[in-house]
């Protein structure tokens, strides 16, 4: 099942998975290449990696237990990571599909929609809640509350309180076309709202090193860096 050496290699990717880190790679790629890629990926996340649980995702390929042992030893030595575990069991029908193709074409098709989309105005005293992502086509008034287990996107004016990543998902964001909330919370962190910036821009709040940061969304382009669409 080894790939030809001439064949294009699959990039190694790192992704937060709750409190753990998930490493996606193609186990058929050469070991040296994988090592190099891992070093690159971990370079700027050194503090993050210490004692963190690692989960490998081989894109459905089974039977690479030796590789896990080798990579585990390597990561523990280089970056002092925590427990390392193998790929989650995946369906055999994907076993022979190259991971990248899967990602680019269909990987999100098997997901049920996990976003609640509401249209209209959320008024004072009203509360809109979603288990995962919440999208409001409308405005959120002062005194209103929107809560989501994941992201909150307001395609309108956000003036009330927004609680994303409830209770502890620090990866979540809160975005609004007109961002002037009373208060925002993400994964347990709280920030009081500020007066909106003078120039009209689309802003979003996210967590950066333990504090909530608000940035110009188009300028920061936080997801433009992900090379292909992923399920969020």
């Amino acid at each position: 099942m080894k790939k030809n050496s001439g064949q294009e290699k699959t990039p190694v990717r790192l992704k937060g998975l709750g409190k753990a880190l998930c490493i996606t790679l193609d186990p058929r790629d050469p070991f040296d290449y994988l090592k190099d890629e891992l070093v690159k990926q971990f370079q700027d996340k050194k503090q993050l990696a210490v004692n963190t649980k690692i989960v490998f995702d081989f894109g459905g390929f089974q039977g690479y237990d030796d590789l896990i042992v080798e990579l585990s030893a390597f990561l523990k030595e280089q970056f002092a990571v925590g427990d390392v575990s193998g790929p989650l069991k995946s369906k055999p029908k994907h076993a022979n599909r190259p991971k990248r193709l899967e990602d680019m074409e269909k990987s999100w098709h098997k997901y049920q929609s996990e976003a609640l989309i509401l249209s209209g105005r959320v008024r004072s005293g009203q509360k809109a809640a979603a288990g995962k992502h919440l999208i409001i086509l409308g405005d959120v008034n002062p005194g209103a509350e929107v809560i989501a287990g994941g992201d909150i996107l307001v395609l309108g004016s956000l003036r009330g309180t927004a609680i994303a990543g409830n209770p502890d998902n620090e990866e979540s964001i809160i975005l609004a076309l007109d961002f002037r909330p009373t208060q925002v919370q993400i994964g347990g962190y709280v920030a009081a709202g500020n007066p909106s910036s003078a120039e009209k821009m689309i802003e979003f709040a996210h967590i950066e090193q333990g504090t909530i940061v608000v940035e110009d969304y188009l300028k920061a382009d936080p997801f433009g860096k992900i090379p292909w669409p992923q399920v969020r």
Partner: protein
Amino acid sequence: MSGKIIVITSGKGGVGKTTATASIGAALALEGKKVAVVDMDIGLRNLDVVMGLENRIVFNIVDIVNGRCKVKQAAIKDRRIDNLFLIPASQSDNKDALTPEGVVGVSEELKEEFDYTLMDCPAGIEQGFENSIAAADEAVVVCTPDVSAVRDADRVIGLLYARSITPKLIVNRIVPLMVERGDMLSHEDMVDVLSVELAGLVPMDDNVVVSTNTGVPLVLQKESKAGSAFRRIARRLNGQNDLPIVVPQSQDRFWKKIGSRLGIGR
């Protein structure tokens, strides 16, 4: 005759519900309609005082709902305006004396008797609010240009929509000079958040206090800007939807405008 029941409500207290009820009621009566204004603030009645009718009260709304009298017996005719009647609150009963079902039970009789029945709702969103909106066909939300009143009005608007009542908005106690200076919320800012149709804009006006003390209805005072604002609101509620909204202006600005036209301003 099958009339309409309109509730005047606000959430926040002291924003001008009672003033609006008395004034719009009087103005609708002047338009030739038969009007009842009902004080739904059980235990804290004051519509009778504002209208100068407190010494004529025999029966009240609780008596009507409990079948102790007919609507006609309890309705007190206004001293100055024909076709205007007050149905007072009971001062002695407590808030539980009325129930929404009880009010709905007498709504047909009210609609039989009057073209318009205006319910002066108490502040808050509890029992008194529920009683007042129970039989309402339409609602008018009164709000002053301040953040907390807007917050409460928004809450009430949500509750009204939840009962399939589409409210209209009155902004009361506007001080044009402060709005122009940016020290007071503008009605545009308020409509932006509340997103409901405007019924009218009422300026701050000393004549309101004069009217309360003398018993001369605001809408009969020729000089009163608030009075003429309420007259326009009444005409709009009475079906004249195309009547333009007049935005209260300060004298100051008026003179500035003339000044610049004559070329004597700066």
